[in-house]
């Protein structure tokens, strides 16, 4: 019996010849990522060692990555003190994959990991963040865990009692029309599967559209796989993965690609033809409340947000700059742009995108999570509405339970910034 990609990765990491969905395994962890919630991980990690007479020392500091992104620069003394405590831990244990609050090498964890080549095809990656699914874009089995589970990983070096997920195979064919892209595809898929349709399952992406898709686009679809409840989204590594890791991440050591067996067993197969796909919008307050843009065109919005680990990459900023160049953001709209990393910010500066966006009236913010999770900046007022390229629109997500968030692609966000209402980029702004 053949194995899916996830089964193959888990078999290797668990030292087994064969695993199948439902088996319980204890895979060695290749990379363990945390952000500011490392503060809680450190507490729990020390708790594990409490009373043992042994010093709390991580199993392998070289496999731990810590990236400050959720509240950068710190918005409160509490956060600043958490960050300070983490810095001390990082220094004490020689954690090299540490990205502090910096304009050059800082950024959002899910952008930093691929960008610096920390993730490889076939890796088992865990992260104390639900969007850790992102790293499936590089062919890794990558899933979100809580802080206590991370403390356990730091102690043992493996994840305990992991159930091998069943896999949903998603096969995508066709060509995107102009102004339609990976974000529209994943929103459409989440609308189809529902917010719990892939709970406890992995999603494996296949098909000509995926093969042709850049790593940047694959990061979008794997990132949001968790919004269908998936444990992990994964694109089996291929030539594009090698290109990205060699050319963009500067990886020089050997890379092995893992592909599914031809007779792998899938729980179900979902086929999507994107030739006729239109821009998709997730409406308040659920990410699976997805509608084709035609149904919501003209809806008034107060804040446009472009950024996050979902759509804050260079191609997203290029799209926004192309649409807004020489135009103006509507007077009654605030437009916030936050690049996913310092490196991307620098590239967008060099290419003039930042200039274009600022001249149009956008506020370009430092890279980090910014308004995405509503803790730091860019909060909404009562009864206000945002249109955002981020990945979640639960009630209160942008800091105010009396506001609403629509999710969309960068093209839709940029076109709508010009008009102040949800606008189909294929029709263009005024």
């Amino acid at each position, binding site marked *: 019996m053949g194995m899916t990609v996830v089964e193959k990765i888990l078999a290797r990491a668990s030292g087994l010849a064969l695993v199948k969905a439902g088996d319980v395994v204890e895979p060695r962890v290749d990379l363990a990522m945390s952000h500011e919630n490392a503060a*809680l991980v450190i*507490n729990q990690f020390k708790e594990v060692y409490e009373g043992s007479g042994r010093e709390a020392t991580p199993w392998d500091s070289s496999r731990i990555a810590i990236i400050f992104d959720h509240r950068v620069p710190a918005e409160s003394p509490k956060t600043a003190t958490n960050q300070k405590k983490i810095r001390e831990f990082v220094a004490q244990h020689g954690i090299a994959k540490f990205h502090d609050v910096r304009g050059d090498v800082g950024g959002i964890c899910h952008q930093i990991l691929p960008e610096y080549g920390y993730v490889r095809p076939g890796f088992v990656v865990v992260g104390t963040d639900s969007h850790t699914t992102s790293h499936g874009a590089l062919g890794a089995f990558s899933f979100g865990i*809580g802080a206590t589970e991370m403390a356990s990983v730091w102690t043992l070096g493996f994840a305990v009692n992991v159930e091998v997920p069943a896999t949903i195979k998603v096969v995508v064919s066709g060509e995107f029309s102009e102004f339609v892209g990976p974000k529209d595809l994943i929103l459409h898929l989440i609308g189809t599967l529902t917010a*719990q349709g892939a709970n406890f399952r992995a999603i494996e992406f296949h098909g000509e559209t995926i093969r042709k898709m850049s790593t940047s686009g694959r990061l979008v679809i794997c990132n949001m796989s968790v919004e269908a409840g998936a444990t992990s989204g994964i694109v089996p590594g291929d030539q594009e993965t090698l290109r990205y890791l060699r050319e963009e991440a500067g990886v020089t050591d050997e890379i092995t690609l893992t592909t599914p067996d031809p007779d792998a067993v899938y729980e179900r197969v979902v086929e999507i033809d994107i030739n006729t796909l239109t821009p998709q919008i997730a409406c308040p307050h659920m990410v699976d409340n997805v509608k084709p843009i035609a149904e919501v065109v003209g809806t008034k919005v107060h804040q446009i947000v472009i950024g996050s680990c979902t759509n804050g990459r260079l191609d997203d900023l290029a799209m926004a700059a192309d649409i807004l160049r020489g135009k103006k953001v509507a007077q009654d709209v605030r437009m916030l742009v936050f690049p996913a990393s310092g490196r991307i910010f620098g590239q967008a500066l060099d290419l003039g995108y930042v200039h274009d966006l600022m001249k149009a009236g956008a506020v370009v913010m430092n890279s980090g999570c910014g308004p995405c999770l509503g803790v730091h900046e860019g909060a909404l007022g009562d009864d206000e509405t945002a249109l955002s390229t981020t990945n979640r629109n639960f009630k209160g997500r942008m800091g105010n339970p009396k506001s609403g968030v629509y999710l969309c692609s960068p093209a839709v966000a940029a076109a709508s910034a010009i008009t102040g209402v949800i606008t189909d980029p294929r029709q263009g702004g005024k």
Partner: protein
Amino acid sequence: MAKVIIKLGADISTDDIYPGRYMATVLPTETPAFCFADRTEFNTRLKAKAFEPGSIILGGENFGCGSSREQAASAINGYGLVVVAQNISRIFLQNAINLGLRVVICPTIDAEEGHELTLEPTEVVNLTTGKRFPIQPLPPARQAIIDAGGLIPYTRQRMQPV
């Protein structure tokens, strides 16, 4: 016997259970203050401890979806409450088990706020309506962690001897 102190709908997210604004607060002694912070009335009832320990939060499908923030589980756990839901999102379920928050998956549960339930090993009995609903057992992989009293004691058991 335990009372349902709130009935919630489907897709209750961790943003709802523990809003992101309070994520810098991490200590299990401090997180309960922000449990369902944006549901002001319920949050006030919780803080006033106007319920018996072991009372029930009744959820629908996909309870705890969204962020991996463990504060969502520790905040509920701090009040000694039990979550009964039709099904539970993976990360929240794992966090609950890791922290010793009691969660019961009961796909067909039918109850209202104020109803009295008993949680038996294989079923939930709604004493108010007299109806019984089967419990979906937790996967064996997770039961081992519950039996150890949570993931920290379980990890201690699994550590290599010196």
